[in-house]
């Protein structure tokens, strides 16, 4: 088959499967689309009350002069939500389409891509609303929009790589999702989302523990998003390089893992 024709066919399929995800998700609910926004909104309110008010976590006083816990939180929470939704979604991307995989041939990874792309759509809307919120608070984020888009692209590549791995492994090991559920909780608290990274750096943890902590690629992602949108500062070049290497690396590994397990998918489902 002509690889170019294959590619354009795949593009049409990707668009259609993504639309299916988007249309199917909230089609028959009264609030429809607003559900996808209510969820992070509720999380934000809960975290702001618990951590911002009750535990009085002080966000870093940014060079921009803004001190606002909800804004600080959302800069980390939205990228995190995108990743965790991708991980959960890709684990059912293949299992949930078993009937399709067993009856029709098409490049299987498109199912994972469509899952990620549909979540990207919500991600874009959420970040857009966050930008409006930051503007209202007086943070001049407009010059950083391009930077934010690049960071979102990198995170998408990273999440796709993770998603490719989880999607096939979950076919072979059906209890993977429970393990991932636990891992996601740990990962959430090991990432400076609800607290500023200053608390970790200033803590009495031994240096090696701080180094291990900093290896977490999501620490890098959250830092990059936060320094651009909250601090209005150019992120550390080292961090940008670090998350780029992670994204490309995970994507390559993800493709390889997927390719290894793909041929037997129709039998194992």
């Amino acid at each position: 088959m002509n690889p170019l024709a294959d590619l354009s066919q795949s593009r049409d399929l990707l668009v259609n499967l993504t639309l299916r995800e988007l249309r199917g998700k909230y089609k028959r609910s009264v609030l429809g689309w607003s559900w996808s926004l209510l969820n992070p909104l509720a999380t934000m309110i809960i975290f702001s009350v618990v951590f911002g008010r009750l535990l009085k976590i002080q966000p870093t006083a940014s060079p921009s002069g803004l001190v606002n816990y909800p804004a600080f939180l959302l800069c980390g929470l939205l990228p995190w939500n995108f990743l965790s939704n991708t991980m959960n979604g890709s684990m059912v991307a293949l299992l949930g389409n078993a009937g399709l995989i067993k009856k029709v041939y098409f490049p299987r990874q498109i199912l994972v891509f469509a899952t990620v792309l549909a979540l990207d759509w919500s991600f874009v809307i959420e970040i857009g609303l966050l930008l409006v919120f930051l503007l209202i608070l007086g943070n001049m984020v407009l010059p950083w929009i391009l930077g934010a888009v690049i960071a979102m692209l990198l995170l998408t590549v990273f999440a796709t790589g993770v998603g490719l791995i989880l999607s096939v492994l979950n076919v072979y090991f059906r209890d993977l999702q429970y393990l991932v559920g636990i891992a996601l909780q740990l990962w959430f608290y090991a990432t400076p989302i609800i607290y500023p990274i200053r608390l970790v750096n200033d803590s009495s943890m031994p240096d090696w523990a701080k180094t291990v902590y900093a290896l977490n690629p999501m620490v890098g992602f959250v830092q990059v998003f936060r320094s651009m949108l909250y601090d209005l500062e150019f992120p550390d070049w080292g961090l940008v390089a670090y998350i780029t290497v992670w994204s490309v690396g995970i994507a390559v590994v993800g493709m390889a893992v997927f390719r290894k397990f793909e041929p037997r998918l129709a039998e194992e489902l």
Partner: protein
Amino acid sequence: MGDMAVTVDHVSKMFRLYHDRNQSLKATLMRGRRARYEEFQALDDVSLEVPAGTTFGLIGENGSGKSTLLKCMARILRPESGSITVNGKISALLELGAGFHPELSGKENIYLNGAILGLGAKDIDRKYDDIVEFAGLEQFIDTPVKNYSSGMYVRLGFSVAINVDPDVLLVDEVLAVGDEQFQRRCNEKFAELRAQDKTIVVVSHGLGLMRTICDELAWLEHGRLRMIGPAGDVVDQYLAEVQTDRQTDADTDGRGARWGSGEARIDDIELLDANGRETNRLHTGETVTIRVRYQADEPIERPVFGLAIFNVEGVLVTGPNTREAGLVPDVIHGAGVVDLTVDKMLLLPGTYDISASLYDYAVVHPFDFRQRAVRFDVDAGMPHETFGGVMSLDGRWSTQPDGGPVLRPDRSGVGLADAGPDKGSGPTDDE
């Protein structure tokens, strides 16, 4: 012609039969490896070629590997060794409506399903009206498909799949769906595709159908290619073998195929051709006599002789009896024959079985009943029809433009029924 649409080259396919279907990480870690399995050889070194523009059938018993081979052609399954080359665009009718999303409307699902089957948005725009019309769902196209009946669902699925306009179409037993009207339209569509020289690969258990629609057949047995050749030859050979099996089955299970009180018996059932010679091979349109030899040990008053003809799928074609025909002897005693003479036997090519019975006048008490006791084959004759089906109506065609002369076929129907008079020659003619 001459080009191969599908080339299957030394293909082998293994399936893993897991001892415990417990696919969990926990169990794997505790055992130190993945679940134990045995390998099952579904296809064993199969090689065959499907010539472009032909209809090619795969037959065999359940588990012989024919569906596996079809799925390998469709790229759904990946063979362990060997290769399959397909020339041109392929579409598989394995399950209709796979990938429909219940919440989406029929229209949205047409685009979705079309994309899954490899159609671009522009292609679908172009074919959209055809698809909707063929499915007969104009009124419901904006309704979510979850509100469709199963028939509507299948119709829409078929309609999208068939309109993909493939060069090679793979079909797996999915034709037994929908109501009769829709089945007829499906068959018409297949005839149309065959006429357009598309390649079709069919898997079916319906031997009669396979014999009529397929040019060539491959017979698979336990994953190996047993025989490949012209459809009629392969079906004959296959039936000869299966029939032998069936006879031995009948012997061991006490021959449930014969019952009755036995005061009078049907000793023999013969088929006689126009010259009175016994035969089991006829041609459509020939004269044939079915002769029943009976032996009545006691006088039987007003007996009723019945015959029934079934095709190999077990569908009753006809079941005439002497009483309904107005022939009721007052009494029979001793030996004798009953003949049913058919001046023009209109069965189409296929394999058929005859049952014969001898009843009392009320057709309540069987003296002897011999279920599917004789088998015979019908080869192509006159009228010549290749579309399928069981019987010809032996009708006469004519057409007349308003005010013009009546036109009748110039040749007495030789050639393909769907080729039309202007096409000149059927595919069976010399090349």
